[in-house]
């Protein structure tokens, strides 16, 4: 399982980042997810990626939301946003991307997690529905609301024409 989990790490980490909005928190969440996975591997017949995303999401819900990490990120984005690009991206692009995180922080949790799974991970509605244990129709409506809210937020900040 460890070898398969290693291959899954980048995607899992990206998912953690999209949920927490902070690279430091994402790495903490990733580590806790891996620890939990090693302690509670998926039951027979359950694919590891599906189980891993589910655990990551549940840990975020249980721990990180309770600690209001996201609220801190929302109110002080300048403290959370770190730029690890190699300088080749232009500054304007960086600012626009920074606004994405700020906009994501305004989304309700149930919309954020759906957008993370579909937009960042590229999962199908069915796959996201399995991970979140909700109907695919709910995924569709939450995702639409999330995208619309993001359009509105990014337009207000001028990041989206």
């Amino acid at each position: 399982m460890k070898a398969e989990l290693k291959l899954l790490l980048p995607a899992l980490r990206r998912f953690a980042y999209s949920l927490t909005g902070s690279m430091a928190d994402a790495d903490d969440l990733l580590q806790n997810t891996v620890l939990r996975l090693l302690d509670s591997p998926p039951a027979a017949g359950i694919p590891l990626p599906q189980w891993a995303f589910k655990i990551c999401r549940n840990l975020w819900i249980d721990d990180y939301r309770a600690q209001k990490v996201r609220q801190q990120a929302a109110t002080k984005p300048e403290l959370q946003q770190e730029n690890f690009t190699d300088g080749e991206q232009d500054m304007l692009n960086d600012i626009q991307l920074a606004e994405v995180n700020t906009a994501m922080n305004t989304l309700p949790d149930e919309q954020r997690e759906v957008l993370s799974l579909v937009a960042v991970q590229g999962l199908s509605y069915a796959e996201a529905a399995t991970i979140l244990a909700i109907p695919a129709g709910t995924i569709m409506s939450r995702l639409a609301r999330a995208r619309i809210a993001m359009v509105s937020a990014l337009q207000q900040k001028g990041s989206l024409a």
Partner: protein
Amino acid sequence: MKITDEMLSAFLDAALPEQQMELIRQQLVNNEQLTERLAEIAMVDSMVEQHYQQIDHKPMPASVLQLLETEPATGSDVVAFPWWRRAQQQLQQHAAAVACIAVFAGYGAAQIGGQQQSSPTTVGHTVAQLLNSAASGKTYNVDEQQLTPRLSFISQDGDFCRQYSLQDKALNTENIACRQQGEWALQASLATARQADAGNYQTASGPQALDSILDELMASPPLSLAAEQDYLTKNNAY
């Protein structure tokens, strides 16, 4: 038919029935406003994906990679380990540092003949003597082997039981034995090959090999060192 944002969102993911997909495609041809709205919604995914991919440029935390090289750290306060495993760790920490290193040094990963015996077998006389008297957390020489009692507990059947390791030059065995009617009966035993480089340090993968058996056998938390000593004293009175 009015095309809503929700429909456009689902259209992006090709999640609508083909009839609706086709209807939207047709409207997009002639409706510039609808096309712009679709582009706005599509841009959200692109920007979100681009933003969160930034973390890929940051090196993966070494602590996480390390977890996947070895067993999870037992000192973590994040994962709730079974109560007996925490207690096991506490007992081991009671022992001198030198004893701990002796316990954990040189475990090999390769298992040979690693079947767990389920039918009780009586342990040898010398080992039985040590199980009757030796405190957990220390290493004792027995014949040409080293015996290390790891913990003591009371089984579901009310027997006094012990987990211990036996090491020689080639093999390490992790064992669980229970004292039944005055004799030590082996409940489980797992053999692993020792690494040639005895200087290699590996986390406590050895003791954990029999975790599932312990889960089934133990009726309550492991005995404290003081409680264990009481049982050992009583056993010596047999």
